[in-house]
């Protein structure tokens, strides 16, 4: 090899080695002192992925992808992916409320989405998320349970809402709430008539109607750092480093369905107010996205 080519090759290798070493330094620092690494970014009012403190990740929603379900939606919040499938079945209404149907949510966090989950019965996080979604449905009155009744005391619809997380990168509650809302908007129930003579239910699959969705609850999650800083839409790493979390579920009139703060650092009333205003803007963003998606679906 000529002397010039050899020198250039050595210089190129030298540059590559220095670049790799610099990258390795940052990665090493991040492994050894994750909180310090993170604080350096927070001091500049931004985060490692380049977002501002009050900025959400890119949200995408895909409605109606599961053809075997009565309603379905896939929501991606950055890397966090949640899919919701709604199946409608018949059931006898509860004895203490014979004119009401049921909505049964279930959140599943399988080992597929993150290495922290094991296979087997649902862990604490999945149970917490399921309880959260059940509370949101109950408190926000998203569906009037009386609408699900077919024949009082005899037959009612039960909507099984299954939310499965396909990729866990933090902020699971926001993604689940959004997926549930989108899937319920997509549900079409066939018309059911009770035959007077045989007393059997006759299902007319050709006549389907959408559910009457009364409110649109949208969840906004925050993570608290060092007892002072609030960041919106935490990723998996940020959730791990945070000293507390807060989730606000708001509907379009500014009413709160849920203020979920399970312990962690304290918050003053003023900070809560900031969170409320952020939740209001988030609601507008999500509503706009939902309306666009619904409009783009071709009517069957």
């Amino acid at each position: 090899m000529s002397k010039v080519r050899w020198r250039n090759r050595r210089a190129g290798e030298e540059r590559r080695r220095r670049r790799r070493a610099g990258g390795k330094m940052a990665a090493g620092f991040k492994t050894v002192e994750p909180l310090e690494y993170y604080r350096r970014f927070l001091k500049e009012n931004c985060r490692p992925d380049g977002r501002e403190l009050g900025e959400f990740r890119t949200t995408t929603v895909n409605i109606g992808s599961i053809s075997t379900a009565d309603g379905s939606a896939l929501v991606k919040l950055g890397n966090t992916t949640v899919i919701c499938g709604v199946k409608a079945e018949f059931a006898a209404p509860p004895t203490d409320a014979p004119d009401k149907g049921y909505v049964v949510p279930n959140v599943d966090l399988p080992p597929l989405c993150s290495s922290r989950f094991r296979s087997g019965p649902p862990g604490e996080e999945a149970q917490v998320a399921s309880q959260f979604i059940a509370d949101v449905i109950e408190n926000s009155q998203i569906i009037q349970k009386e609408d699900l009744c077919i024949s009082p005391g005899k037959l009612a619809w039960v909507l099984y809402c299954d939310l499965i997380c396909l990729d866990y990168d933090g902020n699971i509650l926001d993604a689940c709430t959004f997926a549930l809302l989108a899937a319920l908007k997509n549900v079409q129930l066939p018309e059911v008539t009770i035959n007077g003579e045989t007393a059997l239910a006759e299902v007319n699959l050709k006549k389907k109607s959408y559910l009457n969705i009364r409110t649109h609850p949208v969840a906004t999650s925050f993570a608290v750092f060092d007892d002072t800083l609030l960041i919106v839409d935490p990723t998996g790493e940020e959730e791990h480093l945070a000293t507390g979390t807060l989730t606000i579920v708001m509907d379009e009139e500014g009413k709160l369905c849920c203020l979920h703060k399970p312990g962690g650092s304290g918050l003053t009333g003023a900070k809560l107010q900031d969170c409320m205003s952020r939740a209001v803007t988030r609601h507008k963003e999500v509503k706009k996205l939902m309306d666009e998606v619904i409009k783009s679906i071709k009517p069957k």
Partner: protein
Amino acid sequence: MEEERHTEAKIGAETGRGSSPRGPGCSLRHFACEQNLLSRPDGSASFLQGVAEKNRERLIRNTCEAVVLGTLHPRTSITVVLQVVSDAGSLLACCLNAACMALVDAGVPMRALFCGVTCALDSDGTLVLDPTSKREKEARAVLTFALDNVERKLLMSSTKGLFSDAELQQCLAAAQAASQHVFRFYRESLQRRYSKS
């Protein structure tokens, strides 16, 4: 011989009184606590049924974890056992108060004390502090807060029902005012206990 001084032990008992004058504008029921109830501060087994209990446990655990200085006791497990003697409403708030007093009694180092306060909102918007079970069932919204005693910050919140932002601020302010009474009670009962031994 240690003289056991108990302030009245009526954790969550039915008093039959609608409101107890603890101060102007505050309508918390009569409350009391018993200290040094167990000879060993550490609890043992815990029986839990159902998701509601698990949820309540999680909330209490997270509140305690935020306040207890765990770094002073590495490789240590602190178990808090709460036994419901009777439930007459505002159960979660009562559990939080009991947990805080038990941690103080055990001498666990904490960065602040905390207390639980429950607010219920009627359909016409009236705020009721420390509601009974009947009032909780009929209320439009029930909010439970855990507040610390240093700056009255919100440590934990658990809500049920629909309410507006203004109502939330109102409830929070009322809860902060009520927490003063609870913390004064903590101080008085601890003073009474330690002044005797």
